[in-house]
């Protein structure tokens, strides 16, 4: 099976506390550490497990700039055979639909049986997979937490509320957004990354993909204006003092509220 995984490079929230810049209209970006969007590792791992079982290749693709090559190499170090960068000056400012349009143009240039995305990225939008499927007119499922390969189709599980799961059969080719926890993504060491450091990464621009004009300008319907800190509301009463004092206060509170007899 030929599998394409769409990945993205994002600020790493396990390395950064997101704070506002001094102007108060954007997040402070100077010290941000970037890495691959964590849910995308689950998608790559799942793709690798499928080809290990039933043959084929895994290709990882991202829309971005030269800096984004590093995440392609990371996923190649996991075992993806190819990395592809879709890059063009005119792609900056593309909204979710624009990204899906660029990816769809790339997909139609090749042949993929299965396309995977991570469940969501740092913006929590969870949109590109479903849009990509609709643009390609492929079936789609979100929040997928199990995949079994059958002839010409897959048997998949979807996570729904309360820990329950829906089971579906879905025809290939299709697009799936992969929920975190579906597997344990394999570890990637420095040595693995060095081994793929010089593998060429093909790059395709707007002209190569034939998406001139329809991902920028008036085609951008959704645009972030600024970031801001949410209103605090009531907020928690913060306990002050040294650790011993705070522990003392907390024990009294727990007694009063029925947490401790």
């Amino acid at each position, binding site marked *: 099976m030929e599998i394409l995984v769409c990945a993205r490079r994002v600020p790493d929230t396990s390395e950064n506390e997101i704070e506002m810049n001094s102007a108060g209209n954007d997040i402070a970006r100077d010290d941000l550490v970037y890495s691959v969007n964590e849910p995308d590792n689950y998608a790559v791992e799942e793709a690798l497990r499928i080809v290990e079982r039933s043959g084929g290749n895994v290709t990882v693709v991202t829309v971005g700039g030269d800096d984004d090559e590093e995440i392609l190499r990371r996923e190649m170090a996991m075992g993806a055979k190819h990395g592809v960068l879709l890059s063009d000056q005119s792609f900056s400012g593309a909204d979710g639909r624009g990204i899906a349009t660029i990816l769809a143009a790339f997909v139609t240039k090749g042949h993929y049986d299965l396309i995977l995305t991570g469940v969501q990225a740092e913006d*929590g939008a969870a949109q590109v997979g479903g849009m990509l499927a609709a643009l390609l007119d492929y079936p789609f499922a979100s929040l997928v937490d199990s995949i079994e390969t059958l002839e010409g189709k897959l048997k998949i599980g979807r996570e729904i509320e309360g820990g329950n799961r829906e089971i579906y059969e879905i025809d290939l080719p299709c697009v799936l957004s992969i929920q975190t926890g579906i597997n344990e993504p394999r570890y990637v060491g420095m040595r693995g990354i060095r081994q793929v450091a010089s593998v060429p990464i093909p790059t395709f621009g707007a002209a190569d993909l034939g998406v001139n004009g329809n991902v920028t300008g008036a085609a951008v319907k*959704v645009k972030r204006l600024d970031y801001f800190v949410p209103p605090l509301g009531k907020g928690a009463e913060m306990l002050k003092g040294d650790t011993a004092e705070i522990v003392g206060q907390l024990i009294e509170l727990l007694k009063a509220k029925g947490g401790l007899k």
Partner: protein
Amino acid sequence: MARIFAYIVHKGGVADDSAAELAAAAGKIDATESPVAVVTGWGADCDAVCESLRASFGEVWKIANAALAYPNAEIVRQALVSVLPSGSLVLIPHAHFGTDLAPGLSIKMDAAYVPDVLGIEGMDGAVLKLVRQEFDGQVNAHVRCDISTGAVITIRPGAFKPVERTAAGGTVVDKSAAVGALTARRRYLETIAAETGDVDITRYPVLVSIGRGIEEQENVAIAQDLADALGAALTCSRPVVDAKWMEKSRQVGSSGQTVKPKVYLACGISGSFQHLAGIKGNPFMVAINKNPKAPIFRVADVGIAADILEFLPELTSRIREK
């Protein structure tokens, strides 16, 4: 102004609580016109839902078809595309069904898409200004959306307070005939119920809950010690289950268990809305997190800015002294 449609999620003939929240959100977009409720389904359940919505919506569009008996988003989308007028605003709850349906629906309707909206700031011409959250709720963002060709918007559960509606006596309009052939390249087979674990966390009045801040599997024992000292159950947020450090049956949240304790100690938990959605009954909530800006401090009653790996053992040993 385009008409606003509210997609009604329902089960067993009863509309989900999100129906009233969508109506409230629609009122923030356009207070002058009542939104239209859209119900897809089949048989008596579908009829019962439509009937119940007459009390709160001026108009209810019923789309009944045997293929819609189970809410398979791939089939529901086809039905909506053939029934909803182009240029419409479509509101859908941002839960597992919404993420399955809405992105593709926006493409097929050639409409803008804004997911997981928690605030609506108003309309300027054909531009709607909305509020979203990014980075697990650490920051909010204003978003502008050009609705000139319509929009699909998913609404964060709990973000919009239902308002009393007086549009009683709404009419049910049967749109079933407008639906063409429905094909299913994704076919529903069955639903598998959640696995029950060794401990029923929904029965405990006190919960010690851990998140990403526990850092390593070996550290789970630190929190278990505290839970034992308090006679509490140990629960967790999603990252702990994803890492396979605890069983799924211990997860609190919209995709895990819904709990209703008296006291909830959130330890190293950032406080995503999916996690908070699993905590009901307004317990006394203590948050312990080394990031003083963690969103959990916005909702907790008492906060402690500390590293749980240092703080929890101190707390446990003092409790045991007593």
